[in-house]
């Protein structure tokens, strides 16, 4: 046990672990993470099996990487614990120096005389020190007075606070890894689906995509309701960067899409000779509409959201975004083929028509409606509160360690023949310059005092 503590409280081990963890972490950025065995086989050939077996393809979840993190955590804990007791003593049971010669060992010191009597010296010094924010302890014996003035001694615990924070973050990380879960739920408008692992459901009331003037997506907004036992519990509109949280679950806007299988299209009908189009019809793709008194049958047959011609002159959709919606329409007039061709929503000047068909029927593609769905990511991560708590400790500790550096001044005041002799000294580890400035200033202020 003793040797265990000795090993794990050593900073040498910490440095060794830090270097090993850094190198391992780098390794994980050189080999793509989380791919399929086939992909690795293609990339690395026979080496793939070795990489997979050593856990390098899922390095940050591999047992040996996690073991390194556990060792590091034990190291941080033992190291901080073994050092905390002397620090507590230093902070809360400070020693008042009582020997002149100890002043010689201090890194800041000054020995000087004053005409003021001992009690006056003490009073003046205390006043100056208090005005600089020092807390003072004093002790007197046989006409001698000892002062111990300190401030910012909480700064002693800066590094411990950082280490505690790191420990909490690592624990939070393990909790996230072990108990966190995430699912995607695709909801069409007005649809309600149960949330996996919960006793409530999620309903999509409204979904919209906002665009910039140049056509790129600005934001997605989904209005969601939490439904429990057919009761609406709460409703909130979420968007990217503004999730909804409820009972430990968080709902994110993670994607969106349209159901392009049979959208509704609006077609305008007219005659080449007449302008404008005299009539329009709304109809689902794949269905037929009769415009009776004109004896015209309209049949939109295919729809693509982002029309493009392949090299073999085949029509396909470049993407699932409605960038260039097009519909292929066939129309009969009194039983005779009157139109067949592609109509473009955004580029009607490119509308095609079968040149064999002789008719003055003219069609235009005015609008479409497709069922859109919103993809909601559902995350549950009980590690999160640990992470934010740990981060707060880390920042607090860094502030204490670097900008709240303890200062300690000691004084011995004694009578010597006609005068009073004063020994002053200070202890510094870090930020010597500014402490020395303050020290000199205090001595100067004292000299000017009456």
């Amino acid at each position, binding site marked *: 046990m003793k040797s265990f503590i000795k090993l794990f409280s050593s900073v040498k081990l910490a440095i060794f672990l830090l270097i090993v963890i850094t190198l391992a972490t780098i390794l994980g*950025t050189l080999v793509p993470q989380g791919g399929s065995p086939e992909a690795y086989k293609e990339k690395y050939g026979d080496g793939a099996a070795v990489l997979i077996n050593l856990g390098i393809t899922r390095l940050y979840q591999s047992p040996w990487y996690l073991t390194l993190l556990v060792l590091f955590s034990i190291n941080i804990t033992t190291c901080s614990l073994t050092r905390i007791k002397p620090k507590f003593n230093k902070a809360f049971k400070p020693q008042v120096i009582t020997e002149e010669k100890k002043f010689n060992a201090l890194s800041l010191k000054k020995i000087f005389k004053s005409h003021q009597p001992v009690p006056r010296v003490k009073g003046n010094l205390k006043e100056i020190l208090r005005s600089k924010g020092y807390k003072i302890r004093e002790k007197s014996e046989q006409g001698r007075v000892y002062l111990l003035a300190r401030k910012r001694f909480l700064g002693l615990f800066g590094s411990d606070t950082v280490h505690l924070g790191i420990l909490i973050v690592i624990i939070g990380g393990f909790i996230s890894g072990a108990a966190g879960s995430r699912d995607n739920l695709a909801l069409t408008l007005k649809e309600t689906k149960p949330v996996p692992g919960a006793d409530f459901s999620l309903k999509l009331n409204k979904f919209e995509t906002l665009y910039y003037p140049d056509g790129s997506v600005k934001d997605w907004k989904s209005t969601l309701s939490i439904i429990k036992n057919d009761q609406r519990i709460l409703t909130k509109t979420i968007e*990217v960067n503004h999730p909804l949280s409820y009972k430990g679950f968080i709902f994110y806007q993670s994607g969106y899409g349209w159901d392009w299988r049979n959208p509704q299209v609006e077609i305008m009908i007219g005659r080449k000779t007449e302008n404008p189009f005299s009539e329009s019809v709304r109809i689902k793709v794949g269905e037929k509409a009769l415009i009776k008194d004109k004896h015209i049958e309209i049949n939109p047959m295919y729809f693509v959201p982002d029309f493009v011609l392949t090299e073999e002159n085949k029509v396909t959709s470049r993407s699932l975004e409605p960038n260039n919606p097009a519909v292929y329409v066939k129309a009969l007039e009194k039983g005779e083929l009157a139109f067949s061709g592609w109509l473009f929503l955004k580029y009607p000047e490119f509308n095609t028509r079968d040149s064999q068909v002789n008719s003055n029927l003219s069609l235009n593609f005015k609008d479409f409606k497709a069922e859109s769905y919103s993809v909601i990511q559902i995350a549950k991560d009980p590690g999160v509160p640990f992470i934010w708590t740990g981060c707060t400790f880390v920042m607090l500790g860094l502030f204490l360690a670097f900008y709240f550096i303890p200062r300690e001044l000691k004084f011995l005041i004694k009578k010597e023949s006609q005068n009073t002799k004063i020994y002053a000294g200070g202890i510094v580890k870090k930020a010597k310059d500014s402490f020395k400035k303050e020290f000199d200033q205090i001595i100067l202020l004292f000299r000017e005092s009456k």
Partner: protein
Amino acid sequence: MTESTLFLIAFILYGFSAAFYFAFLFSEKNVWAKTGYKIIFTGFIIHTAALVLRTLESGHAPFTNMYESLSFLAWCGAFAYVSIEGKYKIRKAGPYFILIIIVLMAIASSPLMPKEAKPLMPALQSYWLWLHVSVTLLGEAFFAMAFVTSIMYLIAEPKKTARFKQNKGLTPERLDFISYRCIAVGFPLFTLGGLIFGMIWAYKAWGRYWGWDPKEVWSLITWFVFALYLHTRLVMGWKGKRSAVIAVIGFLAAMFTYFGVNYLLAGLHSYI
């Protein structure tokens, strides 16, 4: 006055400032350095105006593409130099450090960098973007400062006895101390901006605070290297040469996180 004119003026002023600082280096006359300081200070103010103007014009934070982010990093560099020089008088480091700022400005203004402000994709519309990027880059500017003083240390230290004795202001000990002070500023900023704000933003945008994305991982690596710097120094008493080497490695890791990851490793952050 347009943003690009202001940017150009700032760039030119940085150039002049570096020239004056180099003149100081060779002539050892303090006036040159003092003038150089005034010029970089003016350049910094004008650069600030350029960034403000760009923010007002585009309506979003001035670091959403590579041009903006380089210009912002250069601005952080100017800020770091102006403040450190004001506090610690490190004139001899001036010319080299300003050279780094000039290189950043030059890459930013190269024709390869698209300059137009594009509308922001949904995940980038968050005030955490402001906090995350600005605080991280500010931290990195202080790492850059420590990098320069560490390199100077590594060059100066072996010749300590000969030339540097008379070199009153900036002894190797002083360089070592200033490197440490810069890291003491940069480390908390980097921790807050790069890691913590990054995690908060990732959590808000993607529903996870950490995803082992290459950019995240390299920030962590950078952070480990500087943690190594602090511990070897404080607990094992490493000072001087070994400390300086770690500070240099740390800065290189930070720069790899900033540039390299985008071009060499794929990840979510590649839209920056």
